C-alpha cells in the first residue's frame, strides 16, 4: 500500500524548473531514497512535501489527504516529520526542549490553561516527557539531555535533529542527507538507526542521500533525479547500474 503518492509534481522559480513532472510512490514500511547530483531538485521535493513551497502543478497524496491543500503547520500533525540539510535546530534551547517542541503538534492545551499551569497541562507535560525520553533512549542522547544545542558538535546535532523528528512520532520521516558531515563511525550508527526506525518503530523513511554505500545498505528502493526530472527508479542495484545515472551522477 502506498503511503505517499506524488504525481506529476512541478515547481518553477521564474524560468527555472526546479522540479519537473516528478512522480513516485512510497509504500508503507520501506526506506525510499532520492539521489542525484547537486541542484537536481531533491531538497525542493522535500520542501514541496512539507509545504514550504506551493507546487506549480501536480498532486501529492499522503494516505487519502491531498497535501497540496494542507497548511504548512498542519503537515506535522498529519504524521510527516523532517530533518534539514543544514540542521535547523533551536540553537539556544536545550536538547530536551528541542525534542519537546517535536511534540508540539500533539498538544491541545490552551493559552489560559498554560498561564495557570492547570493539572491537565502538567499531565500532558509529563506524558510528552515520557515520549521524548523513549526517543532519547533509542538514539543514546541521555548524556546531552540538558546541553544547549549551540555548544554541541556537528555529529551530535545531526542526531538531535533526527531525534526531534522522531519525537513527532511520524508515519513518514523525511531525512535530508542524514550522513552529510558525519565520520565513518557516525555514519555506521546512522545506518543502524535508520534500520531501527524502519523495523522497530515501523516508520516509513523518505531520504535524500549522497553516500552510496549508506544508500545501498538501508534503501529498499531508490529514485534518481537530474535537472528536476526522474531518470531512473528501482532497487539500489538497478539504479546504480542505470547508464543515465552513471552518466549524470555516479561516474564510471
Amino acid at each position, binding site marked *: 500500500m502506498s503511503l505517499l503518492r506524488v504525481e506529476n509534481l512541478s515547481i518553477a522559480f521564474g524560468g527555472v524548473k526546479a522540479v519537473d513532472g516528478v512522480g513516485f510512490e512510497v509504500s508503507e514500511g520501506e526506506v525510499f531514497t532520492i539521489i542525484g547530483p547537486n541542484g537536481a531538485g531533491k531538497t525542493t521535493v522535500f520542501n514541496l512535501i512539507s509545504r514550504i513551497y506551493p507546487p506549480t502543478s501536480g498532486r501529492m497524496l499522503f494516505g487519502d489527504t491531498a497535501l497540496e491543500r494542507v497548511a504548512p503547520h498542519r503537515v506535522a500533525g498529519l504524521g510527516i516529520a523532517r530533518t534539514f540539510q543544514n540542521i*535547523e535546530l533551536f540553537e*539556544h534551547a536545550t536538547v*530536551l526542549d528541542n525534542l519537546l517542541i517535536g511534540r508540539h503538534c500533539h*498538544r491541545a492545551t490552551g*493559552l489560559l490553561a498554560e498561564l495557570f499551569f492547570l493539572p491537565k497541562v502538567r499531565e500532558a507535560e509529563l506524558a510528552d516527557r515520557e515520549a521524548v525520553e523513549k526517543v532519547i533512549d533509542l538514539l543514546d542522547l541521555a548524556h546531552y539531555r540538558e546541553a544547549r544545542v549551540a555548544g554541541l558538535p556537528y555529529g551530535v546535532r545531526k542526531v538531535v535533529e533526527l531525534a526531534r523528528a522522531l519525537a*513527532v512520532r511520524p508515519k513518514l520521516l523525511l531525512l535530508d542527507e542524514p550522513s552529510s558531515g558525519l565520520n565513518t563511525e557516525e555514519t555506521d550508527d546512522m545506518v543502524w538507526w535508520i534500520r531501527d526506525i524502519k523495523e522497530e518503530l515501523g516508520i516509513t523513511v523518505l531520504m535524500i542521500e549522497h553516500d552510496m554505500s549508506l544508500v545501498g545498505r538501508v534503501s529498499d528502493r531508490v529514485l534518481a533525479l537530474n535537472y528536476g526530472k526522474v531518470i531512473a527508479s528501482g532497487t539500489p542495484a538497478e539504479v546504480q547500474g542505470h547508464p543515465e545515472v552513471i552518466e549524470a551522477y555516479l561516474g564510471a
Partner: protein
Amino acid sequence: MRFIFKTTYEQDIRLVKHGGQAFWYGLLGLALAAAPLLPEYYLSQLTFVCIYALVGVGLMLLTGYTGQISLGHAAFLAVGAYTEAVLQAKGVPFGVSLLAAGALAGLAGIVIGLPALRLTGIYLAIATIAFGFSVQEVLTRWESVTRGNSGITVKSISVGWFQFDAEWKLYYLTLGMLLISILAILNLLRAPTGRAFVAIRDSEISAQSMGIHLARTKTTAFALSAALTGIAGALYAHKLVFISPEQFGILLSIELAMMIFIGGIGSLHGAVYGAVFLIALPQLIAVMKDHLPAAIGHQTGLEPTVFGLIMVLVILFEPLGIYGRWLKVRYYLETFPLYKKDSFRRQKTFMKSERLR
C-alpha cells in the same frame, strides 16, 4: 557545585528546582515584604522598579523569547495609562479599568503584530517605531478624550472603601502585579506555547515543520507582551499622577529596549535586573555628580552619555547583560578554585550555512 539527583520528571517541571533556590527567593520575598520600612523616597523608587520590571517581563517575552524586536513599547504603556486615566475619570471600578487597560493594549499589540508576520529584524523595528509615533500623535490630537498636551491628572486608586493613598499601598499593589505576571509567564515558558516562542526565535522554518502556527504564535506573543505593558501603564499612570503624551515618546521606548538588553536578553531575571539598573543609574549619577570635578559633573547630557557608554560596553563585553555576568560570577564561586578562564569564552563557529527563510 550543586548536583541534583533526579528521580522524577516532575523535578524538571517544578518552578523551584532545589532547596537553595527556595531559600534565596524566600529571603528576597521577605526583604521585598519589609521594604515599606525604607524611607518613602526609596520605596517610591522601588515602585518604579516594579512597574518597569513588569514592562520588562512583557518586552522580554516578545524580544528575548520570541525574537521580535519592538521599539514602540512606550505606545502600549501609553495605551494602558490613558485607558486607566480616562476610565477612572468616568467612575469605572479599578479592577475593570485595569483589565480594560491590559485588554486594549493587547488589542493594539495584535494590530502591530499583523505587519510583524511579514517583517523581520530592522524592518520590524521601524514599523514599531512608526506605531509609537502614531499613538503619541493620536494622544496629542484626540483632545476630547485625552485633553491633548495639557495632560490628565490621575487620582489615587480606590477599591470600594479602600484607598491606595499611601506609597506603601501602591508599592504592594505593583509588586503583587509583578509577581503574578512573572509566575504566569514562567508557567507559559514551561508549556508548549513558551517553547513555540523560543522555536520561532531560533528557526522559523523548522518551527513551522514541527507544527507551530507562525502567525498565531507571533500574534499571541505581541498580544501578551502588549497586555502586560498596558497593565504596567495603568499602574504607571497612578504612580506618576499626571500623564501627558510627550512622556511616552521614542526615548522611553528605546530606554525600555535598553533595559532588557542590559539586564540580560533571554531570561526573566534579566528583565528585573534591567529595571533595577534603569532606576538606580540616574540616582547613582546624581550622587556621583557631587564628587566629580565640576567640568564633568555639571556637564549637560551626562546621564544619556553614561547610559550610552554602558550600552556599548555591555554589547561589546557582556552580550548577556547583568544576568550573564551574574551567572559567570556564580560559576566562579561554585567551582572555586578550579575555575578555568576559558569556561565562558565565546566560541566562534566557522560553519555558516545558508538558511531557509
